[in-house]
């Protein structure tokens, strides 16, 4: 309500202001006066999207959760060891005494079979999950954008060729392909790097397809023709005119994919093909704790809970972004 009042005030201000403004070279436009004109800062596409996102409670909660684990993961070295004891190493003097403790003040979620703090391990584990999620999806997005742009923009043979390769990649069950690649590596070579590469190099086809269709629809717009008519080159058209208008679905899908990738990483680590000890990851923690599933379910429950919550957060955030970036939902 308040905002509306302010807006109408501003319109009136503007009418007066316009009629007093200096003499323009041409008869001034009369049809523009009734338009609301934001003086401070013009609203941008991203500014608008942020305003809409802020109204979506679920997406905002997801964002807050993701920020919390991001901050915890980045600052872990500074405080986790001091607060809960170093969760990355086994302290042989206290390991036996601290083994499989229930929740206490100094160990809020208890300890694992080697006396390490579970919350501390979750925080360190989030590093692997987030790194794999973001890095692998980035690789997929870059390859997908490039190939999708080429096939959408040029069409014809280029498109046919790229899309057939995409089809071939999509024909393989994605996680099995990852397992295959990682299983072929010698155990010493396994770790976070190969996981990122294998997921990243196999995940691009859906991005390529999505971006291609997005480019195809944006390419129809008059402003692309107008850009061509002022003499813009192909690369300028692609990167300046089409890309910014076609990128929204990619951002949404990438956000959701990070969640999926975290899940894949957890699955691969659970199978022993992903992150190797002493590195920690959530999937690895579930694997380590599964022999205590009945006696100490917390060992499996907490990393599982962290995975679910984080994957859900990425999905909800992606959902929120989709609504926020939809230009047609102007309010």
């Amino acid at each position, binding site marked *: 309500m308040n905002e509306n009042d302010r807006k109408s005030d501003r319109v009136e201000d503007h009418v007066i202001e316009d009629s007093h403004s200096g003499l323009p070279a041409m008869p*001034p436009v009369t049809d523009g006066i009734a338009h609301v004109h934001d003086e401070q800062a013009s609203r941008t596409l991203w500014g608008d999207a942020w305003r809409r996102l802020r109204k979506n409670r679920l997406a905002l909660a997801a964002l807050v959760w993701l920020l919390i684990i991001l901050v915890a993961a980045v600052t872990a070295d500074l405080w986790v060891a001091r607060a809960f004891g170093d969760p990355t190493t086994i302290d042989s003097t206290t390991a036996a005494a601290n083994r499989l403790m229930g929740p206490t003040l100094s160990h809020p979620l208890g300890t694992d079979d080697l006396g390490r703090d579970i919350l501390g391990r979750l925080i360190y584990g989030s590093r692997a999950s987030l790194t794999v999620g973001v890095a692998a999806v980035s690789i997929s997005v870059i390859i997908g954008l490039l190939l999708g742009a080429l096939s959408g923009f040029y069409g014809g043979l280029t498109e046919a060729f790229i899309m057939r390769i995409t089809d071939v990649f999509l024909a393989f069950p994605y996680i099995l392909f990852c397992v295959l690649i990682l299983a072929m590596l010698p155990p010493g070579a396994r770790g976070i790097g190969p996981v990122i590469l294998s997921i990243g190099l196999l995940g691009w086809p859906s991005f390529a397809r999505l971006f291609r269709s997005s480019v195809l629809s944006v390419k129809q717009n008059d402003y692309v023709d107008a850009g061509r008519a002022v003499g813009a080159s192909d690369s300028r058209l692609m990167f300046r005119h089409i890309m910014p208008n076609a990128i929204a679905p990619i951002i949404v899908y990438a956000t959701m994919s990070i969640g999926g990738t975290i899940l894949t990483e957890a699955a691969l680590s659970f199978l022993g093909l992903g992150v190797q000890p002493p590195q920690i990851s959530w999937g690895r923690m579930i694997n380590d704790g599964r022999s205590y599933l009945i006696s100490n379910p917390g060992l499996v429950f907490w990393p599982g809970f962290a995975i679910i919550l984080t994957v859900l957060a990425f999905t909800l955030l992606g959902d929120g972004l989709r609504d926020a970036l939809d230009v047609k939902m102007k309010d």
Partner: protein
Amino acid sequence: MGDHLLEVTGLKMYFYTRDGVVKAVDGVSFVLDKGETLGVVGESGSGKSVTALTMMRLTPMPPGKVEGGDAKFKGRSLITMKEEEIRKIRGNEIAMIFQDPMTSLNPVYRIGRQIAEPLVIHKGMSKRDALKRAVELLRLVGIPNPEQRVRDYPHQFSGGMRQRAMIAMALACDPDVLIADEPTTALDVTIQAQIIELMQELQKRTGSAIIMITHDLGVVADMADRILVMYAGRPVEYGTTDEIFYKPQHPYTWGLMDSIPTHSLVEKSELCPIKGQPPSLINVPSGCAFHPRCPYCKQRCVDEVPEYRIIEGTHGTACHFAGDPDFARACAVEVGV
């Protein structure tokens, strides 16, 4: 011969679609000199826009293909020159204004940046200089508060203002030829008049030639030096504005004239539309393409394609009976021309 600014001779643009060959432009010729205005008039689908797009090489090829003719700009063929060369001409020497200003501006960029784009591309200006120039251009086209308005996004502009911004963008590099493809069709009638006035005013200042594409003879009446009337991709009549308005030769031109609404306070007359639909460009009627809708159609019109011929000076038409005194007399009674 080669000293016209723009000379189009027998231009043909065909589209090869799954349903057949669409002869969108079928032998169009005209000349344009410095500072002149050419009006290209015809119904939807008569090939007006495609003619302009073909000259700019903006039609998708394939499916489109230039099947003959040429368009020479300053003596150089626009049709055969290299892509890099025509890119230097687009927006620089020949600029274009599109029909729908609501969709012709990129929604993610500020107005100023879009007006500045041709300057950055062609004149190698820095972004800052180009933006300064964009402010001047906005002022030139009559946008109040241009200093603030350059920072606006297209959705903050109304239709008329966007078309003004499009004109500013087209004029940025001071082009020799400005092609306006139905620049007023998507606008309110009151704004239409403003835009036309603006274009005339700017033409006086910059001396650029204008090709005004429209379906409304009224729009070009007091603007154009010459008028080209098109029907089904073919030129139907071409001449000076006076010739077209005072001595029209082709029944289609007559039809267009009759369908201009007249203000009359005293006597109410019925509006006279041309009956029927424009033909499909895949199955163009035999003989004269206009014959199924022509009220004066004779057997010859069905059988024989009328040759485009000169009636007087540069005034030409493609009608079997043009200049035939008996025919004119017979029809004059009905039409009242």
